[in-house]
């Protein structure tokens, strides 16, 4: 005979944020992954007959000015947007960790020099930055990523630097120094894991901001290249016919909000889980 332990199930508080966040993000992830291999309609095939069709069972989100299925395009765009924002955050976070760790831990001249460069990048318009990178490295999605990553790095450097300054004289770091642990190991093995809870918050915000920043670039005409699309570029395209076919804008718009909310909820849930 089995013994059911009811109390443990009842006593545990349900982490509502985690569940909702996981479900919301999950749907997006599934959409993005399926979108790589299959979409209900071709994302590029045009149809003159079906321009600006309203949402229907054939076209869940309707069609755009070229008669393309918006749902299919959103599916594909979700993947592109997600990939861009994840890569942007990954690159800038790693750069931020390396630079922030070195400047924060050692201080002095290196700190002064790196922080001045960080300040300089901060004041530098990301559009110009994007243009410079595209001219140096050519076109392509990867360079949008790189430009945004460079623009995002300063804020990560600041956060990591602050944390390293806070922790550089922590007792356990002093001990590691006394043991004769090598500097890089102190930086990245001893200190680094301890800044992750703070870092995680900025990573979540960064993911959100990267989606927004990419859509800003799309709006200014230097985002991804058509017919490739991101949620931001779809939204930008959709504006032209906002009054006559509002569903075109609504589909990517709501998807952005949904994604960002999902990620935020998930991270809040994870935060609660740790406590």
């Amino acid at each position, binding site marked *: 005979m089995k013994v059911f332990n009811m109390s443990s199930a009842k006593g545990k508080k349900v982490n509502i944020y985690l569940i909702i966040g996981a479900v919301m993000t999950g749907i997006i992830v599934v959409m993005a992954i399926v979108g790589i291999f299959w979409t209900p309609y071709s994302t590029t095939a045009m149809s003159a007959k079906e321009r600006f069709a309203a949402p229907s069972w054939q076209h869940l989100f309707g069609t755009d000015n070229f008669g393309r299925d918006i749902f299919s395009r959103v599916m594909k765009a979700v993947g592109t947007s997600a990939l861009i924002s994840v890569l942007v955050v990954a690159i800038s976070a790693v750069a931020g960790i390396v630079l922030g760790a070195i400047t924060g831990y050692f201080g002095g001249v290196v700190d002064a020099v790196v922080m001045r460069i960080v300040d300089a990048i901060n004041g530098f318009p990301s559009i110009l930055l994007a243009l410079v990178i595209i001219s140096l490295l050519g076109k392509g999605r990867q360079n949008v990523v790189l430009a945004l990553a460079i623009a995002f790095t300063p804020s990560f450097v600041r956060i990591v630097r602050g944390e390293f300054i806070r922790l550089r004289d922590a*007792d356990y770091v002093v001990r590691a120094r006394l*043991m004769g642990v090598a500097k890089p*190991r102190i930086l990245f093995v001893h200190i680094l894991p301890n800044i992750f809870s703070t870092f995680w918050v900025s990573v979540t915000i960064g993911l959100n901001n990267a989606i927004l920043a990419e859509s800003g670039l799309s709006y200014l005409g230097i985002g991804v290249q058509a017919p490739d699309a991101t949620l931001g570029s779809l939204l930008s395209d959709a504006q032209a016919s906002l009054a006559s076919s509002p569903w075109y804008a609504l589909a990517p718009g709501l998807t952005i909000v949904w994604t960002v909310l999902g990620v935020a909820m998930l991270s809040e849930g994870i935060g609660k889980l740790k406590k």
Partner: protein
Amino acid sequence: MISIDNLTISFSGKKAVDGISLQIEPGEILGLVGESGSGKSVTALTLMGLLASEGVMETGTIDFNGTCLLKAGVKPDQKLLRSFRGDQMSMIFQEPMTSLNPTMKVGPQIDEQLLLHAKDDFKSAEERKKRVLETLEGVGLRDVEKVYDSYPHQLSGGMRQRAMIAMAVILHPALIIADEPTTALDVTIQNQIVKLLKEIRDREQNSMIFITHDLNLARRICTKLAVMKDGKIVELGSTEEIFTNPQTDYAKKLIAAVPGRKNSKSAVHREIERIEPILTVKDLNVFYKERSKKLFGKTEHKCVVKNADFEIYPGETLGLVGESGCGKTSLCKAILGINNDITGNVKISTVRPQMVFQDPYSSLNPSKSIGWLLEEPLRAEDILEKSIKYTKETRKEMAIDMLRRVGLDEYYYDRMPHQLSGGQRQRVSIGQALITKPSLILADEPVSALDVTIQDQVLELLESLQEEYGLAYLFISHDINVIYRVSDRIMVMKKGEILEIGDRDQLFDNPKHPYTKELLAES
């Protein structure tokens, strides 16, 4: 009379206070003693009606001079409670720095009491200010106008605590609860605060609940004691009764663990062979950079340790005692080479002396397992010394061996620091310092953050390890009793200067410096 009847408080199902009953008479100082987590503070906060929202009052009633303040199952009347708080009963907290609002001047913070409860008794703000100033004078503060207009951080720890006390007594409440009011203060200040509290009680004839983990202190101030353990009162009686004739095992153990000259187990004088010092400090000055506020002013080198001159021999414990900010830690760091802004000589004839820190929570890397932490010094040594080569297995063996030596079971190898208690962490910390077998350990207040019984165990461990490895300790503490217990020789420091250094018993029996005398006065 204030009476607590059959009080049970639980936090998410776990009982923090378990059916306690207490009565406090006017003029009485009731000591609530026990180790951390025994429910002392929870009891006090409940009495004040400040129980955190996660806490549930399961049973019991609290009666204050005939008014039922709290009753289990009945929604607390917040308005009633607020009218009592501050007016009828007030509280003094442990950390005067954080317990005062950092962005509000001290005067207005005290004035708030009058505003909240006795606004109509005063005609004007000036009158209230006059009253506040009087009260500040009453708690032994001088230059009260200046104190009134100061922010908390501009006052010293002792002054802050006096201001806290002024806040608590300004309305002459029937009950004052003091929660570890002297723990964060230096010994000499501690004595003054205790004296002040006594004076207030004598003057005002109010009741007082004095919460402390320090039995020595409780003995000096309290008329009645309640010994708490795991949320229960295990023993209740007059202070003298309990100290002279404890009934329960726990009380006995607690009293026995109190370090002090009279009950020190290692009061036996050890003979140390002093031939070749393991550490020689000669004419050591340690500086601290301070930026000048003036334009083009040079960066000032503030001397925090002046002309330190001493040595430590193998197998010996040198106790270093002094108040916070006297330069103890700076001296340590200079010896270990962490601070290079020094003049003079430090000669160490052993490899890599290690350090044990005060706070067992910050000295272990929270993101690593205990096993990893214990092995890390070996890995570092492996890289540094070409002659040494540890395999993964030997490292693990050594770590587990060290776990046993510091009195922990093998399964702690995979635990994370946050899963350990403070005492256990300090054991790991000691193990980590010892695993590379240094012959000199600098221990900076290693037991100050621990409960008495745990403190006792850790000190015992340190002693046995000293025996085993022939270690030399530089043992730093502000607690003269702990110093007495562990040291062979004692060094007294004040404001960066070594005032006195000498054999333990000689120093205790015959202190030369007036400051030493003051330190020893209350031991």
